[in-house]
Every structure is written in C-alpha cells, then in structure tokens.
C-alpha cells in the first residue's frame, strides 16, 4: 500500500519563478523508511512543507494517507508527525512542558502514548526540568522527535534531523528510527549526509529540485556504470591535477585521504588499474597506491550530478 504519492509536484519561488521543486514524482510504501538525500537547496524542505500541507504546490499534486495535500489538509494535519529543519521547540519551556504542550495541541496526553516515546524519552527524562534552550543538540533532537511522535502519527516527516548533531547522537538517532519503523510507522527523512543514505530502505537522490535517482541504496550502488579506483600519492594537489589529465578518466575527485578515479568498465579491472598506476608514476608522483574500490552513495551522487550537468549543457 502506498502511503505517500507525489505526482509532478512543483514549487516555484520569487518573481523569476525559479523552481525549488521541479515536477517531482515518487511514492512511499506503508511502513517504509524513505530518505531524501541532497545538499542544501535541493528542494528537500519544500517537499516536506508541501506534504505536511503548510505550503501550497504550484503544480502537480500529492497525497498522504490517501488525502490530498491541498483539499484535505485538515485530515493530514491530524494524522502526521512533523519535525521541521530546526528543532522547533520553545527554548524557555522545560523538556516536560514542551512535551505536554505539544501533546495537548494534538488532543492527547503524554500518558496515552507514552509507550511510543518511552525508549527515547527515558534518555532525556533525568533532565526534564531543564529548559529546552539549555539542551545540547543531541538532546534537543530527541525531544523534538518525542514531540513529533506524541500523538501517534501514521506518517513521520523528519527534515534534516541529524544536521549539526554530533556523530554519537546521529548514530543513536538512526537506531531510534529503526525501532519506530518496526512499529509500522512510515518515515520520510531528509539528510545532506550521504553516509546516512545506506540506513534507509529506499532513497531519492536530489539536486536542484530534481530527482537524480530513486531506488534502494544497494541498487543505486550496483547501477554505477564505471569502474572506480582509489588512488593515493605523496602530494595530493599534484595527484588531483594528474588524474584529471589522464586520458581515460571519466571523473576524478578527492575522496577523503584518497582520490577517486572512474574509468570505463570496458577496459577491464586489472589492466585499467595497472595502466593508471604506470601513467601516474611517469608524472613523478611517489608513494603511489592504486586499487579498485566499491562506489559509495556519494560516488553515485557525483556521477549522477556530472551526467545531469552534462545533459543540461547539451
């Protein structure tokens, strides 16, 4: 069953009618953990706002739980949970006061749905008298999630819940999402971190209001058409300039301590790697390491962006 459907959803801003969301279509199944992956300005927040009915689409349409986001906004508003980009809490209210306020606004009480938030709430409960403004990023994030869950929503929209939060809290947060998924809550989450993509059931890679690709993380990775090599040398800048000059290079870029170089699959793995290493050695680079590597979601994103840019030019 499809919980969310988007059909050519479009949002434009300003006098120039610049599209922030450009004819986006996809659907999310019941109980799925769906990720919108993309940088700032990709259109993630606009999509969230249209799906949660706080923003009107300029074209196309969408449904949540079978309700239309324009006509049936009341039904959607009472059945979804939403955590906007910044953790929207009242900084001058305590943890407890924030939670009970949002519970009341949604016509419920903390006690009624405590089982839903218990796992998360127990971690911040020792500080329940503390004002939300004095909490660390990780604790704010947990409280905001509790507030979004307190009315037992069927669909949860989380807009960049892990941005600006330290790695420890990020990891804990994804574990919480997995547990929520087990309770059959449909979750749509957005993130600029490519490494979080692998934690979703399915992902949509987004750039400039368009979807570059939409599939399971594993399928996106296996669809990577080229063969990828990781290269290391004594001088990074010289290495990057050298691999960019290499004839067979399709794309090359820094990737952590390595440079990633994609070469045509037709060349054959061993031959391609050896040829690249030989060529680099001739440029005077030392301490060379060249080995084939599995593409990550980030490599796929770069590949898709480059293709997108190239097709936009033609």
């Amino acid at each position, binding site marked *: 069953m499809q919980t969310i459907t988007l059909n050519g959803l479009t949002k434009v801003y300003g006098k120039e009618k610049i599209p922030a969301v450009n004819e986006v279509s996809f659907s999310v199944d019941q109980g799925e953990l769906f990720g919108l992956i993309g940088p700032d300005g990709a259109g993630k927040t606009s999509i969230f706002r249209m799906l949660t009915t706080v923003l009107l689409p300029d074209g196309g349409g969408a449904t949540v739980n079978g309700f239309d986001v324009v006509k049936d906004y009341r039904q959607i508003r009472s059945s979804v949970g939403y955590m906007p980009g910044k953790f929207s809490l009242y900084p001058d209210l305590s943890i407890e006061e924030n939670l009970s306020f949002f519970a009341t606004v949604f016509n419920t009480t903390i006690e009624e749905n405590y089982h839903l938030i218990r796992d998360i709430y127990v971690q911040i409960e020792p500080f329940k008298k503390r004002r939300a403004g004095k909490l*660390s990023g*990780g604790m704010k994030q947990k409280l905001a999630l509790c507030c979004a869950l307190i009315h037992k929503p069927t669909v949860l929209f989380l807009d960049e819940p892990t941005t600006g939060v330290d790695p*420890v*809290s990020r990891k804990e947060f994804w574990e919480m999402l997995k547990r929520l998924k087990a309770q059959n809550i449909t979750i749509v989450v957005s993130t600029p971190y490519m490494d979080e993509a692998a934690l979703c059931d399915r992902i949509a890679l987004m750039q400039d209001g368009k979807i570059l690709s939409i599939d399971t993380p594993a399928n996106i990775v296996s669809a990577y058409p080229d063969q990828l090599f990781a290269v290391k040398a004594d001088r990074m800048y010289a290495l*990057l300039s050298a691999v960019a000059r290499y004839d067979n290079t399709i794309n090359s870029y*820094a990737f*952590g301590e390595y440079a990633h170089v994609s070469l045509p699959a037709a060349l054959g793995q061993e031959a391609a790697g050896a040829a690249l290493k030989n060529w680099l050695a001739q440029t005077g680079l030392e301490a060379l390491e060249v080995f084939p590597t599995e593409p990550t979601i980030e490599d796929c994103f770069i590949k898709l962006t*480059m293709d997108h*840019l190239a097709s936009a030019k033609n």
Partner: protein
Amino acid sequence: MENHKNGRGEEVSIRADKLTKQYGDFIAANAISFEVYKGEIFGFLGANGAGKTTAMRMLCGLSTPSSGSATIAGFDVYKETEEIKKNIGYMSQKFSLYEDLTILENIRFYGGIYGLSRGELREKSAALIARLGLQGEANKLVASLPLGWKQKLAFSVAVLHQPRIVFLDEPTGGVDPVTRRQFWDLIYQAADQGVTIFVTTHYMDEAEYCNRISIMVDGSIAALDTPHRLKQQFGVASMDEVFYQLAREAKRADG
C-alpha cells in the same frame, strides 16, 4: 622572521605548548600541545563544547591564554597579536561575505582591510574572478549566488592577502558533493603553494580530507595523527567511527 624547524626539518607554522584557557573553575582548553607544519592541512575536530572554538580563538590572537605558550607563523600569541592577524586568513561557514554587496565590492572591501594598494587590488580581484570563472557575475550581489560558489569565493577572499595560515571554521557543511570537491581543490592548491590550512569542524567527512587530525574531547586533545593511522589504530573504516569511540566517553560533549 626566523625559521622555526622541527627535528625533521619541516617548517613549523603553528606551535602550541600546554596552551590552557580557564574560565573560573571551568577549563575550556586543558594544556593542549601540537605542531602544524607549513603547507599542511590540519583538521581540528571536536563535538560542540569540546573546546575547539576556545582553542582557535587563542591561536587567532582573539583571546589571551590563561597559561602555556603558542606561536603562530613565528609570532607570540601573548605579545604579537597584531602581527598574527596580518599573517592569517579566516573563513567561517556562518559569516564571511556581505550578502548585500556585489562580488567585486566584497573582494575590494576585504582587500582594503588588509591594506592592499589600489593597483594590487585591481590585479588580484581580476585574477580571482577569472580563476573562479565568475567574470559574468562580478557585479552581482553575493546573495544571488549558490551556496557552493559563495564558499569558494569566501575562501578565495580569505587568502587574497596571501596569509601564511588560513583558519577555516566548518567550511563545507551542507554543500553538494561536486561543489565540495571544487572547494577542496582550492584548499589543496593553496596548501600546495605553502599556505598552512587549519580546519575546525565537527563534520567527520570533512576530516577525512585533512593531512593530520587532532580530536578534542572535554578540553584536551584525545587523539592526533593522520586519518589513515587513526582508523588503523581504532580498527575502524571511517573517521566517523573513530570520533564515535572517542566522544562516547565524553562528559561535556554534545550528546
């Protein structure tokens, strides 16, 4: 300036020795010691509240240490703060350019601050705009640029006066992977030309790009090495996991 060399003959750009900052009972930075070499990209990592900002402020000459010593480009952080400021550049993700000025006006403004002459300014701003491929955009407001371009421009402006050291505060959060690479290309290029790059960040994927990394936990440096060796040492595949293991035990870190 006399040359400061270490045992291996590398020129030292930043040297901190038991640098400490104390606010009342609270020790924000506790006897931190490290060296950064010329042309190195040095990552300064830590969760929010671990003491990163405090340490960086001391190194930039914005705050006087409580004890310990440090030299930046050979200048003392206690006595020669004015000299330090002339020799460093600074860029932060939050603030760097004026949105309501044009690209050219921003470049001229920052060049003017560092006392570049009219001729130098004209020459350098033309070169900078050409290098970034912004010829058509030079008279547009910075507000109208995409985030990635703003960051590239901000970095170029920060190195306009040819500083010996550039401090970057969480420079590439939120940009797309391609633009981020273009940004790092600029950093690698600057480092290749001998500029020392000091990056503070809590984004671990940014850390992977640095030559060496120090990780601050609760005001002290908990680890300092190349990303490769740190990952080996902790037996993990990414810096994220290295950080996770270190920060899990933190008392006052963000969590």
